[in-house]
């Protein structure tokens, strides 16, 4: 039974669960990517509406996954929740703002008397898809580059800069990570359009957008990979719990956890195949290769940060304030309760998959968004 598991096993399990949710969120950012494509890939109002309505059927799922990611971290790693959100205040606030303006934009954009005008809501969507994702990427980047905070004896956080997390976006690694995620989201968005929309011209342009955005993403990806395997990392001595700097830490993690290496390479390969299938082979199923690949890459990234005696939220100000999955987690009792709750996740995934299949069985057409149900359309 779950209750008999060791606390450290539960902590590792919950890092895995949080990683799965976080990785699924990365896949679902195809919605955000699609939102930015309305300015670069759509050539008419009709095409714009097709993209927005295609994404509009899934935006809530992405939003909910982000909320669950936050909730899972709060429940399983409350010290991370308190330290990161309370310390890197401005990064999280700006991310939240971009998600507020996204949530209303779908519903309000086409409604008459919407005060701000359709164009404003489209810009809101674009801000969410670009700035929002960039900042999320920068925040994840700090798992490897560290943040300027310290914790006192009561684990109360003090941030060492007045910018409260915004300084993270100026770090080249974090910035590259953020930009990579922006282009990855656009690749996924383009592949989802190809899979979900029936419109010859738009689909043609979306196919092109998928590989062009891959080209844009590649330099950032290479920079991230080279940095990862060469940078110093934040290691933890398992016997004492002391954090120290280790040369080639993340390369050591990759070599020490071959499964993670396989996940990373397999994931990247899958994304690249998805783009090739969409852009050059005329297939519509690229989103699934891209999606699965993204999830695998996400799992690899989170595993590199959290497992193999690594501090996943390192402090540059006071090394010993760094957070590990062991010192930041909830009690054994809470993790056990939450593990029983998590048994429901496969059921949730099953009904999401069923409804997804049902709703996407027919492609979205111009006739549908201008037809009888036009009032409900975005």
């Amino acid at each position, binding site marked *: 039974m779950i209750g008999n598991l060791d606390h450290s096993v539960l902590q590792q399990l919950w890092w895995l669960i949080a990683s799965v949710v976080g990785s699924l969120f990365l896949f679902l950012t195809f919605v955000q990517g699609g939102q930015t494509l309305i300015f670069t890939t759509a050539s008419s109002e009709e095409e714009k509406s097709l993209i927005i309505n295609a994404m509009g059927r899934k935006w809530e799922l992405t939003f909910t996954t982000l909320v669950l990611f*936050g909730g899972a971290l709060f*429940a399983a790693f409350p010290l991370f929740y308190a330290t990161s959100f309370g310390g890197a205040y401005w990064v999280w606030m700006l991310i939240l703002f971009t998600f507020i303006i996204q949530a209303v934009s779908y519903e309000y954009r086409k409604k008459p008397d919407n005060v701000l005008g359709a164009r404003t809501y489209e810009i809101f969507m674009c801000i969410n898809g670009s700035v929002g994702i960039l900042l999320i990427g920068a925040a994840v980047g700090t798992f490897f580059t560290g943040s300027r905070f310290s914790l006192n004896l009561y684990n109360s956080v003090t941030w060492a800069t007045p910018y409260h997390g915004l300084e993270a976006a100026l770090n080249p690694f974090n910035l590259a990570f953020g930009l990579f995620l922006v282009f990855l989201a656009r690749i996924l968005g383009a592949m989802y359009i190809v899979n979900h929309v029936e419109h010859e011209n738009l689909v043609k342009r979306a196919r092109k957008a998928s590989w062009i955005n891959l080209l844009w993403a590649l330099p950032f990806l290479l920079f991230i990979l080279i940095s990862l395997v060469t940078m110093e990392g934040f290691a933890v001595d398992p016997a004492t719990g002391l954090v120290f700097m280790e040369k080639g830490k993340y390369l050591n993690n990759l070599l020490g956890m071959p499964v993670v290496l396989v996940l990373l390479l397999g994931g990247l390969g899958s994304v690249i195949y998805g783009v090739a299938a969409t852009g050059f082979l005329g297939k519509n199923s690229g989103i699934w290769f891209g999606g699965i690949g993204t999830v695998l890459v996400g799992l690899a990234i989170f595993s590199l940060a959290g497992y193999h005696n690594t501090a996943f939220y390192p402090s540059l100000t006071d090394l010993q304030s760094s957070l590990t999955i062991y010192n930041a987690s909830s009690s054994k009792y809470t993790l056990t309760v939450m593990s029983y709750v998590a048994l429901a996740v496969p059921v949730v995934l099953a009904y999401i998959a069923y409804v997804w299949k049902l709703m996407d069985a027919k492609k979205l057409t111009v006739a549908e968004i201008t037809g009888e149900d036009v009032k409900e359309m975005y």
Partner: protein
Amino acid sequence: MGDPILTTVDWARAQFALTAMYHWIFVPLTLGLSFLIAFFESIYVKTGNEEWKKLTKFWTTLFGINFAIGVATGIILEFQFGTNWSNYSWMVGDIFGAPLAIEGIFAFFLEATFFAVMFFGWHRVSKGFHLFSTWMVAIGSNLSAVWILVANGWMQFPTGMAFNPDKARFEMQNFWDVALSPVAVHKFTHTTSSAFLLASLFVVGISALFLLQERHQKMAKRSMVVAAVFGFIASVFVGFTGDEAAFNVAQRQPMKLAAMEGLYVGQEKAPIVAMGIINSKKKPGDDLPAFYQEVKIPGLLSLLANRDPNSFVPGINDLVFGNPERNVVGAEQRMVTGKIALAELARYKYAKDKGDAEEAAAALALFDQHKGDLGYGYLNNPIEAAPPVATTFYSFHIMVVLGTLFPVIFLAVLYFAFKGTLEYQRWLNLLCFFSIFLGYVAQQAGWIVAEVGRQPWAIYGLLPVGVASTNIAASNVQITFFMFLTLFTALLLAEIRIMMKQIKIGPEA
């Protein structure tokens, strides 16, 4: 605590209150309207009458406009626990985080997944599956309320946990004590039934407007009858659960009850103040009268608080300064114990850090003796233990008065509907329309009672708001407060304009 921290706390409280109040404009309508739409669609599926489908789709459009902004403000609340209340997040995250995660797994995905079917599935899924999806959205929305109210109930009545001095945090000991605490159960039943009431007022009010304008009369009357039945049942339930909730407050948060009634000096056969004007100069412990004017009903507060009209109900003075004759331990005395607990905790942490096991053990033993009043150790003055009385008192009384009016309105609607003269009752239709606004006032007042009445505590009796907040310069929170104020107000105005336009267009466009 220095002034800068107080300022940060003030802004953090203002920001959270702002977000919560905006959130609670949209959410109660979502909770109730989702069920009303499910009723309407069920009638459509049962009868096959296309007019019911048209009616369903009209209310669904209004639901969708409201839903999006409810979701947007909700995500902010969850993350504000981390951004603005980081010490709180750490100190109680072991307990508080679980309901939020469960809410995500069980409720949000149900809502999010079937919401797309509800809106875009009319021609993509079968009639039966569409109806099923509509019901799932209603159930998902209300399941979400279960878990967030479990979390809120725990803040009002912390249970099922213990303090871990090594981690300096509270940890969960019994999940079922947290999930099924009587405060949580009554919070859920009272809050959701009041949400059903508000949504019924909304549907009745908008339909009444159609009758006043002599438009869509058939659809309006149908909507009004279904909503009035739902609203009346909800109203009765609100009254019943309100009484239970107040009983729980009396037993577990006596200071809040005393503030709700402006009761400074505890007494037997305590009266309820039916109406009153609070003396704004009154402070705990002084000799000024509590009210400029008041109308009392003798013994009713004792009956409500203890189910005994002759029983003793403690007042604010008793709870602040103590009343040994009645065995009431006041905040003044608890502060002394609490400060010992805090000092011993600090000594324990320091000794442990230095590796002095003997000193640590001695400090821990003393801490254990005094830890029950740990939270009071953070207070500087016992008067801080009392919440703002006037705000709590007026909000409670506004809520109760309006809560008494609403079932009468629903009954009147049903009476004239069955007489077949509803469209001719101009006064009633005007009252129904105006009652939408009154419903929102009652909702907001209810939350003010619950949250302002809980002050100064983030976790009742354990953690004052001043200790719970993030260590951050006040200017940061001040800026984000105004950013939220501007954004939420702009979006609210946009929502109202869009709603008004959709109502003007009506169901037949």
